[in-house]
């Protein structure tokens, strides 16, 4: 049985994992970079260890440092969270070689699924539906033209080693194909060091629907239903929900069983997510497997009642899945909004700084997974996710309404956030209708609109009223001095010569 886990991550997911460990009676060790010395996860864990300077390469991505920290503190397992080292099969192997448990799949399936081309080939052979396209990359323009004509336009050029939209091109006409392939190759070369690109059928207005899957070490595999994550900006999911608005029992069963087959084909164990694209006619195509806990995992937890982090730990400890497919039931509707420190009025530029004020929404069915607190510094070095706001309600419309209220209650001052922008998304009639496609933001939301300006006006009115009230007390000759704390109480630790506050 695992007794002590090192959490090789930061921010909200590290806090999330630590909390589940606490419930299981497992001790935790947090790691942090010098920029995170006061971060929330370091405060929640039983122990915390600094593993290097702020840049992630020297801290959170430093495999040897993380493994050494685990050994030094007597941990028997490492939970990688998401991002950073989570899907690095070398790290996975090194952890195991060091005699520790890696909470996640075996390195082999992780490596297989990490390669888009290899996994695609494997899945085609296993009869899994994939987006029609070339089986492997090519440098022969004729082959691109041949395939494109067979599939029909529009087509999509993708980089083999790619991600994040780099090297991607949509081509609508045969005449544009050659230049597009060449520029995609150049972009891929500079971004990933490889100019391998391939062609796929371009699915117009697709939905991003993924299935949560769990597999133990004894060949038992179940799916915990879907999540729709179509609302994306710059290929980054921001609003997720479950069930998907297009889901019906038949499609759910079909996709779920396909997901299970994918997992079995890859010989995969532990928690994973099988991603699909679904087109207008409800045809679905396998995209890839995410071999880790997902950012959006809470909505599955809310609708199934299962703690997925606990489940990961149980599987990694060698336990059997505690349920079978027929035991699982999806109840009600859950939505998650990712609250980023970014400026929607300025092309979602990351915003760093200090959280000057924080008000967390609270009401039945509202969950707030966060890595921040009032006074916390948001460093510039990492992914700017501050928190995840998750709501649950019996129906989609009730959940949507609950989310809107919760978003409005959630006040974060000091850094710019996407809260206002997401509220506008949820209020949009296309969202209400369930017309959530991956191009939702491009089609429906005006970028550069001042999403926070309404709030600014209210804040100014509030400040003016407050100021006016304050003057009244002075005019009445009522001194406020006696009730005010002296600088000796408010300045905090401070040193005369250096001004140091440490």
């Amino acid at each position: 049985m695992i007794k002590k886990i090192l959490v090789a991550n930061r921010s909200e997911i590290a806090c999330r994992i630590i909390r589940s460990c606490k419930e299981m009676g497992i001790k935790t060790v947090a790691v942090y970079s010098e920029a995170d010395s006061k971060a929330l996860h370091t405060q929640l864990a039983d122990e915390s260890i600094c593993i290097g300077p702020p840049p992630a390469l020297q801290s959170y991505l430093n495999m040897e440092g993380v493994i050494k920290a685990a050994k030094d503190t007597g941990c028997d397992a490492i939970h990688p969270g998401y991002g950073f080292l989570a899907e690095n099969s070398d790290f996975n192997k090194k952890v195991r070689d060091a005699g520790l448990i890696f909470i996640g799949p075996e390195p082999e399936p992780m490596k297989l699924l990490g390669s888009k081309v290899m996994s695609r080939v494997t899945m085609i052979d296993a009869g899994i539906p994939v987006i029609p396209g070339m089986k492997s990359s090519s440098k022969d323009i004729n082959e691109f033209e041949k395939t494109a004509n067979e599939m029909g336009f529009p087509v999509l050029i993708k980089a083999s080693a790619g991600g994040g939209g780099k090297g991607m091109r949509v081509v609508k006409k045969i005449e544009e194909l050659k230049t597009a392939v060449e520029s995609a190759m150049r972009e891929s070369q500079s971004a990933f060091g490889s100019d391998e690109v391939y062609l796929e059928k371009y699915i117009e207005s697709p939905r991003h629907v993924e299935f949560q899957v769990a597999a133990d070490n004894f060949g038992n595999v179940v799916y915990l239903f879907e999540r729709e994550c179509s609302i994306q900006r710059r290929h980054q999911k921001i609003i997720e929900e479950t069930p998907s608005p297009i889901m019906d029992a038949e499609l759910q069963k079909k996709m779920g069983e396909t997901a299970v087959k994918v997992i079995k084909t890859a010989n995969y164990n532990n928690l994973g997510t099988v991603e699909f694209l679904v087109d207008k006619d409800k045809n679905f195509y396998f995209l890839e497997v995410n071999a880790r806990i997902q950012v959006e995992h809470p909505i599955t937890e809310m609708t199934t009642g299962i703690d997925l982090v606990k489940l990961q730990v149980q599987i990694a400890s060698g336990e059997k899945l505690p349920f079978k497919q027929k035991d699982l039931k999806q109840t009600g509707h859950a939505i998650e909004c990712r609250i980023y420190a970014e400026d929607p009025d300025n092309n979602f530029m990351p915003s760093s700084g200090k959280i000057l004020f924080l008000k967390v929404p609270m009401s039945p069915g509202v969950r707030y997974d966060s890595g921040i607190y009032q006074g916390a510094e948001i460093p510039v070095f990492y992914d700017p996710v501050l928190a995840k706001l998750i709501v649950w309600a019996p129906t989609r419309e009730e959940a949507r309404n609950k989310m809107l209220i919760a978003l409005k209650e959630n006040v974060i001052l000091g850094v710019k956030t996407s809260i206002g922008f997401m509220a506008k998304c949820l209020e949009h009639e296309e969202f209400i209708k369930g017309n959530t496609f991956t191009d939702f933001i491009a089609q429906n939301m005006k970028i550069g609109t001042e999403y926070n300006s309404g709030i600014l006006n209210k804040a100014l009115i509030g400040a003016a009223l407050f100021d006016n009230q304050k003057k009244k007390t002075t005019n009445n000759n009522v001194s406020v001095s006696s009730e005010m704390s002296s600088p000796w109480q408010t300045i905090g630790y401070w040193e005369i010569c250096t001004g140091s506050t440490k």
Partner: protein
Amino acid sequence: MNRFKSKISTKSAAYQENREYNLGLSKLLKERYELIKQGGTPKARQKHLDRKKLLVRDRIKLLCDKDTPFLEVMPFAAWDMYDNDAPAAGVVTGVGVIKGRECMIVANDATVKGGTYYPITVKKHVRAQEIAMQHNLPCIYLVDSGGVFLPLQDGVFPDKDHFGNIFYNQARLSAAGIPQVAVVMGSCTAGGAYVPAMSDETVMVRNQATIFIGGPPLCKAATGEIVTDEELGGADVHTKISGVSDHIAQNDEHALDITRNIVENFDKQKKFDIGREEAEEPFLAPEEIYGIVPKNIRQPFDIREVIARIVDGSRIQEFKENYGMTLITCFARIMGYPVGILGNNGVIFSESSLKGAHFIELCTSRKIPLIFLQNITGFIIGKKYEHGGIARDGAKLVHAVANAQVPKFTIIVGSSNGAGNYAMCGRGYYPNLMWMWNTGIISVMGGEQAADVLATVKIKQLEASGKTLSKEEIDLIKKPILEKYEHESSPYYASARLWDDGIIDPLNTRNALALGISMALNKPIPDQKYGIFRM
């Protein structure tokens, strides 16, 4: 009050050059302070730790409430003096918060020559008591000292403000209702034994603290009695037999904990109400001061640009904006406290003197604390001005400053020369606290002027005997004078000799002033009385 409109361009070459230079000064200050914080030599510190004793600054940290400021005073005492053997003069002094009460802490550093008293150490200890008296601050003495530094006894022992004055002050402070507590954490011999003996309450650490008028060696020499330290004056002896001490502690941590409990039973400090408002951070960035204060400190700069970066909301209300413009007088707030600020924008003329005296009268009658920002080479000179009575008008300002009953704080931001130092509330005018910026310089006059004066005297003497001097010979006379003035006008030279209460970085001014004003209000501000203004 309206926001000050800055005319500073942060893009200008001069700004950038000043900023770089002043950041360098700031770095130097921090480095030197870190050095002082180390206390004695590594060997001495290790020996101290091996005895399971806490280092002096750790003791202070444990004594004070967590996350509260420590307003250290005179950290640079004895800097570059006594062969640099005595960092901070072997005693750390400052104001800290204990159980919510502001207290003056005087803590010997036994790692510095056994915590013995150099001449500057005595001066520092006495000054700390003076601050305590002026601000109603209970005194906590963390005693760990071998007494007088014997090689320098003539500068420590006999005079009016020497060692004996410490106990005189303790008696007077106690009489004024200001609690005196001694925590004996090491040796405390001979004269030093009166620190606990003169205190209201005393704590001793078992097997570590000793108090005796004459130690075992002296006993043996004088009477032949052979006795150990503990038997003669240990904590058990003094808490159980002699009654010299009241509380016994097992170790340093325990002693400090007991002390905190003692402080808890003091009277609550009541702040005199001067109509404080909500604090507001400066609107203009305080960091910009680095670019405003010139690299060559003798170059003029607008002191209002500095003031605006220290006060609440960068809001000031100038008084007589267009009259006597070489002295800026303005009302403002610091962390909500109303203040009257006087700052120099050039030499003082008759008009500036009258304006300053008038402004001080306004502040004293309204009980508003005064802040003096010194950048002053002196009063205007010349026939025209002497005839105009500059001495008489200057005297009015000096008279107003000397008699002002409100809390006064002085900061030397640039030059501080001649009678200008006096008119702007120099050390002789008892400002509650006085600091020097690391950009400041202080001397009776500028080095150039002093060299010129002395060279002229010399030339006249020689001319009388029929000799003339070449330019080279004159330069040779001037050179050592210039060097001497350069060396002695440094803020470190000044602060080492306790002409001020410490060197501060411009960015720390606001906090230092706010803390100072707050503690000054532990005493009521009396009604104002003046003597005769010469008209």
